[in-house]
C-alpha cells in the first residue's frame, strides 16, 4: 500500500484497513523481542519494528497549505479546495473525522475548532462521502457530553445532521499493534475506527510539553478509549510518549489530515499555552508529511523530533524532497511559535 493508495482507491480502503489489521496479527510476535529490549529511537542500528508487508516505503506526499485567517470565513470551500488539491477521493466512503478535543476551557484554544469540523463534514459530503461521522475520546474529561456541548461542537453537528461517536465508551475490540515500539502488545480500539474506510486526523496545531508538538500523529491518542486506558491515558505515557505515538498512529493509520492552524497554541501546550494565529488550514494525504510541514511552519526543525523522523521510516513521508506542496508555499505561511517548556532546542537554526 502506497501513500497514493490512501486517496486514490477509497472503495478498497475498508478491505485494506481490515486486511491491514489482520495481517498485523503476526507482527507483534515477530517484533516482540524488539519491544522487550526497548527501541532506541535515536540509536545507531535501529531495529525496524513494523510489518514491511503492510508498510511499503513511503511515496510522494501531497500537502495543501491554505491561508485562512478566521473561523468565520468560508471554511467549507477552503477544506474542499484542499481535498481536491491533494486528490482526495472519498466517493462512497465511510469517513471518520477525529478532531482534537482534550477538554474544554472557554478561555483557551485547546480544541480543533468546531466550525472547521463542521466545514470538513460538508466538504467531504460534497466529494461524495457516503457517511461522515465525528469521533473523539477526550483525554482529560471523561464527560465527553460536556466537552462536546460546551465547546459548541454538538450544536454544529446537529445543524449539519452529522453524528458524534464518543470513543471513550463506544464499542471496541482488541487489535494487534502494527508496530512494536511499546510493550503494549495490542490496542483496544473502537470499531468506529477499525471499520471506517477513511480516517481523517484533525489536529489543533499546538506545542506539547512532553512531545514538543502535537499534530496529526499525536492526535491519534484520542482514538483510544478512556475506559481502558484511563483519564488521562497515562499508561501510554508510561510506555514512552514517542514510542506510544508511533505504535498508535501506525495502528490507527490516519489516511488524511485536515489540521486547524487558523489559531494554534504556543508555549505551554497542549492545555495552558497561548493563541498562535498561524492563519492556515493544512490538508494532506500523509500524516507524517503533514506533521513535518506543519512543524516547519511553526518555526521548529522536524529533524529534532525523534518520533517524527522515525515515523518517516515507514508510516509516511518525512523527506522534504518528496513532499509536494499543492497549494500555498508552506514557507510563506509561517509563524515562530514559542516552544513548549524544555523544547527550546526545537527552534530551526
Amino acid at each position, binding site marked *: 500500500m502506497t501513500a497514493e493508495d490512501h486517496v486514490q482507491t477509497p472503495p478498497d480502503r475498508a478491505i485494506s484497513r481490515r486486511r491491514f489489521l489482520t495481517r498485523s496479527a503476526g507482527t507483534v510476535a515477530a517484533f516482540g523481542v524488539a519491544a522487550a529490549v526497548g527501541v532506541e529511537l535515536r540509536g545507531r542500528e535501529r531495529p525496524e519494528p513494523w510489518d514491511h508487508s503492510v508498510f511499503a516505503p513511503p511515496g510522494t506526499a501531497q500537502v495543501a497549505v491554505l491561508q485562512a485567517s478566521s473561523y468565520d470565513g468560508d471554511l467549507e470551500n477552503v477544506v474542499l479546495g484542499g481535498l481536491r488539491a491533494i486528490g482526495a477521493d472519498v466517493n462512497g466512503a465511510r469517513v471518520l473525522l477525529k478532531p482534537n478535543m482534550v477538554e474544554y476551557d472557554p478561555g483557551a484554544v485547546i480544541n480543533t475548532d468546531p466550525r472547521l469540523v463542521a466545514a470538513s463534514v460538508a466538504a467531504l459530503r460534497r466529494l461524495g462521502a457516503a457517511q461522515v461521522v465525528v469521533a473523539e475520546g477526550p483525554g482529560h474529561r471523561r464527560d465527553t457530553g460536556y466537552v462536546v456541548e460546551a465547546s459548541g461542537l454538538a450544536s454544529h453537528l446537529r445543524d449539519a445532521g452529522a453524528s458524534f461517536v464518543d470513543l471513550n465508551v463506544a464499542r471496541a475490540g482488541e487489535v494487534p499493534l502494527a508496530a512494536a515500539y511499546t510493550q503494549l502488545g495490542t490496542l483496544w480500539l473502537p470499531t468506529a475506527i477499525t471499520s471506517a474506510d477513511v480516517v481523517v486526523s484533525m489536529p489543533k496545531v499546538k506545542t506539547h*510539553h512532553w512531545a514538543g508538538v502535537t499534530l496529526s500523529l499525536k492526535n491519534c491518542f484520542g482514538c483510544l478509549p478512556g475506559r481502558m486506558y484511563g483519564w488521562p491515558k497515562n499508561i501510554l505515557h508510561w510506555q514512552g510518549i514517542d514510542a506510544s505515538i508511533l505504535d498508535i498512529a501506525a495502528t490507527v493509520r490516519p489516511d488524511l489530515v485536515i489540521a486547524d492552524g487558523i489559531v494554534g497554541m504556543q508555549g505551554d501546550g497542549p492545555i495552558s499555552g497561548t493563541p498562535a494565529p498561524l492563519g492556515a488550514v493544512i490538508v494532506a494525504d500523509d500524516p507524517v508529511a503533514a506533521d513535518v510541514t506543519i512543524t516547519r511552519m511553526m518555526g521548529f526543525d522536524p529533524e529534532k523530533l525523534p518520533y517524527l523522523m522515525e515515523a518517516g521510516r515507514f508510516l509516511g513521508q518525512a523527506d522534504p524532497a518528496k513532499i509536494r506542496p499543492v497549494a500555498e508555499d508552506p514557507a510563506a505561511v509561517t509563524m515562530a511559535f514559542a516552544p513548549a517548556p524544555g523544547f527550546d532546542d526545537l527552534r530551526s537554526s
Partner: protein
Amino acid sequence: MMSSVGMDPLSQLRARRNPDGGVGSVPGGASEPEATALVALALDDDGARTWLADQVGDDGRVCLVAGAAASDRTALAALAMHPGAEQEAALDHVVTTVANDIDPNASPRGWPWTLGAYGWVEPTAWGVLALRTLRPTATARIDDGIEMLRQRECAGGGWNYGTRTVNGVNLQPYVQTTSVALLGINGRDATAVARGARVLRSRWRAEASGLLSLATATVALQVLGDAAQPAARAAVASHRSLGDPEADTASLAWAVLALRDHPVEVFTP
C-alpha cells in the same frame, strides 16, 4: 422520569442487561466491569452482582484487559458485589494494589487506572471508598489514598483528573472528578470537603450539559446533605440525554443514582 423517547433511564438500563448478567458501556456492548458495577448499584441488580463476582481473578482483580493494559475496576466492583469470598478477594487486591510500580519509595501511591501506572484522582477515590466502606481495618492504604487526594486537590478546592499544576500554572477542577473525590474523602477532611462542596455549588450548572457531570454532582451533594442537591436533581430529571437511546451506560446509571431519594449505602461509609 419518562424521556422524550418514552423510555426512562431505569428501563433503558434494564434493557441493556446482557444474557450473562453484565452490562456494556453502550447499548449492545459486551459486558464490562465498570458499567456492570454502576448498574448493579443503580438497579440493585443480582445478575450484575453475580457477573462481577464471576470476573474476580485469581489475584482478586476485576479488570478489562487489552495486551499489557489492565484497566483496574476492582474497587468499584467490590462496592457493588454481594458480600462473600469474591468480594473479600477483590478487597485483598485493592489493599495490595499500589500505583507507580517503578518507584517503590513513592508516597503517597494511590490507585491507578491501569495496573502499574501512576495514581489518579478517580481510581484513588474508589479505592479509598471501597476500603472505608468494606475494609476499614486497612488504615494504611486508606490514609495513603486520602493523602493523595489532598495533594492532588486544585488550588482553591475541588479536583480534576489529578494534576494540580503544570509548569507552575494552576489547573481548574472538574465537577465530575470533584464529585467522585468527595465520595472518597467525605468525613475524613472537613476542610477539603468544604472546598470541594463549594466548587460543586459554583460549577454544577456550568457543566450541567454533561449528564455524567450533573448526575455525579447530584449524588455527591446528596451525600453531603447540601442545599443545592434538589435543584441539581431536578436538572437530572429533565436532562436531554435521558432521551438519548445511545447514551452511555455509566451516565445513565449515575442519573438513576442521582434520582434516588437516598444515596446507596456504600457511598456513605
